[in-house]
């Protein structure tokens, strides 16, 4: 568990630097378990920063989404760095963005936050219905404790963290200019046992599973919007000429959308789980992502978001790739 005082001091020092324009971190939300992204522009702003098991959002999304406003004639664009707090999974998003030239490495100042797992609010809310009072949470010796309105509650980590954290192999940032807190133990395994139950089913059974899920999709595109890897100027989902995917919400177009999104993330998804977290109808997108990760790993011995120098999967070719999927 990082020392908040140290974190804030570091943030103050960082934002005071001439070459940093902004620092992106987390602060408490307005109510309950919620936290918000926090854009630190002055040393005073840093006082509100937190890092806790409730800091679920992957802030790397903001690196690529930041709007590039027109620069007035005669003026220079602001090319100062953006500082960003990253958990292990978030750091992989930064690495992947760098690898595919979405951002320049020298344009970011990465502050690594080793992470013992983020609370899955759905699991928590099953136990404690949501509350309006602000709640604080912290990691404590492999457990997670919460100051709930009714008093303190302590949970074993496994009981309450997000599924992605149970399989996480990179809890310590893979890229960082500076790190706050000590490295933590890697608990996730390299296997894919978590999706085994789905893979053993036959095609009809799998489709039956997905059909229901896909059918319920509202096409709100929250999953796409939150994804740090989805930063196309004009996404295929909104293209009109031609409209590969119609706007109508039905099983056919929904399926086309889900498949397009999945394919666009093959070899790029870094398993931050944000898509699943924000989905209002609880579509288990992580299953789809994990399947992609598995195929990419087994077919091409490739893991996205670990090496900023690595060529992205789709553009690399190794003569010894298996290729046994080619008929």
């Amino acid at each position, binding site marked *: 568990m990082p020392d908040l005082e140290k974190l804030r001091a570091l943030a103050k020092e960082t934002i005071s630097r001439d070459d940093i324009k902004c620092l992106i971190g987390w602060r408490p939300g307005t109510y309950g378990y919620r936290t918000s992204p926090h854009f630190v522009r002055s040393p005073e702003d840093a006082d509100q920063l937190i890092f806790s098991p409730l800091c679920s959002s992957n802030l790397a999304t903001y690196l690529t989404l930041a709007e*590039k*406003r*027109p*620069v*007035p004639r005669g*003026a220079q*664009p602001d090319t100062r760095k953006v500082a960003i707090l990253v958990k292990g999974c978030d750091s992989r998003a930064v690495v992947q963005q760098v690898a*595919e*030239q*979405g951002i320049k490495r020298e344009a970011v100042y990465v502050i690594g936050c080793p992470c013992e797992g983020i609370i899955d609010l759905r699991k928590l809310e099953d136990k404690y219905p949501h509350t309006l009072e602000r709640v604080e949470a912290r990691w404590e010796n492999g457990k997670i404790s919460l100051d709930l309105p009714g008093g303190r509650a302590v949970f074993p980590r496994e009981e309450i963290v997000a599924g992605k954290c149970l399989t996480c192999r990179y809890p310590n940032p893979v890229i960082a200019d500076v790190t706050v807190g000590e490295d933590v133990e890697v608990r996730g395994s390299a296997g894919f046992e978590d999706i085994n139950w789905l893979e053993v089913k036959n095609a009809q059974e799998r489709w039956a599973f997905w059909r229901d899920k896909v059918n319920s999709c509202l096409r709100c595109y929250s999953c796409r919007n939150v994804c740090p890897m989805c*930063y*196309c*100027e*004009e*996404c*295929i989902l909104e*293209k009109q*000429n*031609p409209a*590969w995917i119609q706007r109508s919400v039905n099983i056919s177009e929904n399926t086309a959308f889900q498949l397009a999104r999945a394919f*666009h993330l093959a070899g790029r998804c870094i398993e931050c789980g944000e898509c699943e977290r924000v989905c209002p109808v609880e579509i288990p997108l992580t299953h789809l992502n994990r399947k992609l990760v598995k195929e990419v790993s087994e077919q091409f011995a490739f893991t996205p978001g670990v090496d900023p120098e690595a*060529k*992205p999967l*789709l*553009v*690399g070719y190794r003569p010894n790739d298996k290729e046994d999927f080619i008929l």
Partner: protein
Amino acid sequence: MSSKPKIGVYICHCGINIAKTVDVEELTRYAVKLPNVRVARDYSYMCSDPGQLMIREDIRKNGLNRVVVASCSPRMHELTFRKALVEAGLNPYYLEIANIREHCSWVHKDKQEATAKAKKLLQAAVAKVRFLEPLQEKEVDVEASALIIGGGIAGIQASLDIANAGFKVYLVEKTPSIGGRMSQLDKTFPTLDCSACILTPKMVDAASHPNITLLTYSQVESITGYVGNFQVKVRKKARYVDFSKCTGCGLCAEECRLADRVKSEFNMGIGNRSAIYLPFPQAVPAKYTVDPHSCLFLTRGKCGKSPKCVEACPAGAVDFEQKDEIVEFKTGTVIVATGFDVFDAARKPEYGYSDYDNVLTGLEMERLISSSGPTGGKLVLGKGDGEYVPKEIAFIKCVGSRDKSTGNEYCSRVCCMYTAKLAHLVKDKLPEANVRIYYMDVRAFGKGFEEFYDRVRREGVRYIRGNPSEIFKRNGKLVIMVEDTLTAKPLEDEVDMVVLAVGLEPRRDAREVIDLLRLSQSSDRFFLEAHPKLAPVDTATEGVYLAGCAQGPKDIPDTVAQAKGAASSALVLLSSGKVKVQAQISWVNEATCRGCGYCVEICPYTAIELVSVNKMGHEVNVARVNEALCKGCGACAAGCLSGSVQQKSFMDSQILPQIAALGGKS
């Protein structure tokens, strides 16, 4: 889109190729009813003059502005029909072909089903053609010179032809001399001309030709650019001998401390040379080279008190200070003539090539029997006191050819005849010797081959049909285990010498050339031609041609013929001075491009690069296509996540209606 589409549909019977399986009349009736279709006609051969005339007249009379031809693959006749459009005053890219032959009639039997499928394909083509846009074909200038890689007979012949036509040639050869494998041969089948006698004059011509720059002991380091404008970088390796001073007297080699102690590559290791050497007496250029792998001075930094060669050279030509040199130039076209390697007989361990000195390969036999070879043409085995003249001699054919276990399924095309030739030469030198040839088939297909094969048999050479299973030594003799498959009798044949007719394989260092030019290989691993029948010397890269055994096994006449073919293709380009570049190329929408560079990495022709542009005051990277380099393969378009690269004539907005039509109801 320009004006409202007025589409003409032309359905070809292709004799009965299509009409037998597809109801073409029904298809025509169907076509007229499709949206925007003005006329639909069917005809026995659309590609014929009357067929094309039909299209041209309709365009003129009915004011058609789009044409769909339902016929064979666009690879066959797209150009034909494009020309017809141009002649009628229409942009040639307003054409769409529905392939109802290869994609339909040839692969189906049921006429009703095939007709239904043909309707779909046609409907899809009509859906697409409406959205096609006119494209312009651009031209670029051609640099008036050629690069020839490989100085075997293929490379030499191609160089001479191009140089004689008045164009500059750069002939790059890896080894110290041009000549290639042919210079290693003794006589050549079927006419038995002495190989050196017919080759040497050509080598000398190439070296002295004012239009040919010979770069021997050199390697192409990089080739960039595109047809008409290749930028070439060649590394001239240091020979440690000053070219301008060396007179080729050979005193250095005589005096070299390693004289006669280094294995001679030219003699296939049967004879020896010095560390400073001329590969063979007729070598061109006749200049010596120090072999950096054996020379004492170069490997150990010391050769006695001072290098003997330096002392011996009256011209003071030996120069250990010499460094590699990089030569750069531009060429309009490239011919790859890098030849072949022979099959490594050690890969068939059952024949004992690695174990027994008296098991030789065909190429070693060429050297052994050659009057310029290490024994002066005496057919003897063993060394010094152990020297002996073999009496029982066996040849085994198809070693490393037509043999799946070695990965070489193909026939090497020269082994049958060179075996007959070598057998004849043996009989000529040792009339008493008993010569037999173990074979699977005799392929004597060329001009004068069958006659030669006949002659050799009449000379007493025995042909025994059977594929030996093993060779071992017993009582000092080689024993060949084999079944005579004509009499179905197992044999044990005791002989003094075995010659393995090893097949031809791609050069072991072929990868270098592949990487330079992004060539493809066919399944036999030789370089792949653009079309096995109609473009046998072209490659997928425009302006790059193939000649000789680099493209596949062949004998000297075929090699020379192909070299002349490649030269003529190169000359077409050089003499026209201009080359049309692809019109159906890629195009980048800079507004949506996210500068990821996927397309740059994917493009097999290095036709895309990232450039920095100013978008509202911000410097950002976007992809840009080099229009002269792009071949319109579409790989970039498939790789781009944001759909920002589009291939003209295959834009998303053009192919989506096509796909939709295929999926919808007809």
